[in-house]
């Protein structure tokens, strides 16, 4: 019963109906005390609100917000390198390892320079061979796409016809010779 009255008093205080709350509290000594306690609590709560932040806290927050965003962008490159080489190594260590590896490779490849010139020569001759092939293929293409192609073909056909005519002439001659063959055989008996 008293608890319900206390809740009612609190509701009235909440609605800022202080006179009504006081009137209700006057019914009982303990309720009156409760009412006073609650008013004191309301006054004190506000004072417990801390409105002073430690020195540099705002600066630290801003630094964290914007430095971590930039660091995230930078870390993309770093993570790629780390992924390609050794994970969990810092960027500087990774880069120095890469440089050492490049140096080592260069040093170990140097004694093979004699073999290197031989292979260069071989590659060069192969290349020349294929270039020649390409050149002939190119000539073929040039002919195929030549605008004076028809004239060339006509010339070729004319030449061919002329040649055929010549051949035919010789064929007749040989036939005649063949018919005259008995004459010769009679003239010169065996």
């Amino acid at each position: 019963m008293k608890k319900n009255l206390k809740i009612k008093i609190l509701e009235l205080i909440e609605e800022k109906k202080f006179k009504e709350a006081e009137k209700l509290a006057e019914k009982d000594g303990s309720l009156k005390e409760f009412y006073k306690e609650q008013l004191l609590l309301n006054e004190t709560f506000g004072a417990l609100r801390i409105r002073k932040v430690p020195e540099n806290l705002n600066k630290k927050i801003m630094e964290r917000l914007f430095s971590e965003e930039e660091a995230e962008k930078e870390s993309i490159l770093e993570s790629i390198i780390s992924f390609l080489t050794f994970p969990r190594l810092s960027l500087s260590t990774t880069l120095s390892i890469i440089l050492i590896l490049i140096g080592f490779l260069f040093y170990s490849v140097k004694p093979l320079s004699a073999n290197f010139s031989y292979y260069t020569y071989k590659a060069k001759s192969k290349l020349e061979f294929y270039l020649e092939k390409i050149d002939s293929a190119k000539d073929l293409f040039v002919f195929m796409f030549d605008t004076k192609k028809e004239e060339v073909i006509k010339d070729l056909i004319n030449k061919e016809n002329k040649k055929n005519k010549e051949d035919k002439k010789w064929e007749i001659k040989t036939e005649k010779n063949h018919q005259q063959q008995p004459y010769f055989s009679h003239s010169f008996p065996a």
Partner: protein
Amino acid sequence: MNMEFNKIYEGLERNEKWAWEMIVEQYSSRIYSYTLNFSGSRQFAEEATQEVFFRMFKSINKVKGNKNDFEKYLYTIARNYCIDNYRKNKNINIIEDKDYLIPKWDPDFSTKDLVWKGINRLDEDEKELIILREIEGFSYDEIAEILSIPIGTVKSRISRVRIKLAEIIKSLQGRKQ
């Protein structure tokens, strides 16, 4: 904050420094106060305040562009951080002497000290309600949204907690005398 919140919010969305500076200036003390009242540890409160703003910075696009939603979201992050890192890890160095909270030169030192001690004797859930409502000044429906409980429950619980707090303070006073 003289500028309209919408304009600041647009700046926040574009990660513009001036907008974040305004928000940090406006809310850092409130978040610090909340986390300090929650934990009683200055070190924890400092770390928590930084982390809360950082999480807000990362998830600003999830917040609707009005002030109330922004505040609720900020306090929800703060609350979740406190629950995850404080309640689970009770080893945080809690400063017993609350001089930094209630300076001794304050004429009402004894009253504030008593109320503060009383709040710290409450259960975690009860303490949370009192901090949000009475110290941070949130409305019942804002608290209902932050804590994800019905508004009626918030009202009835706060009344009960206030009655309990008054009894604790009385018992502390009796012990003192």
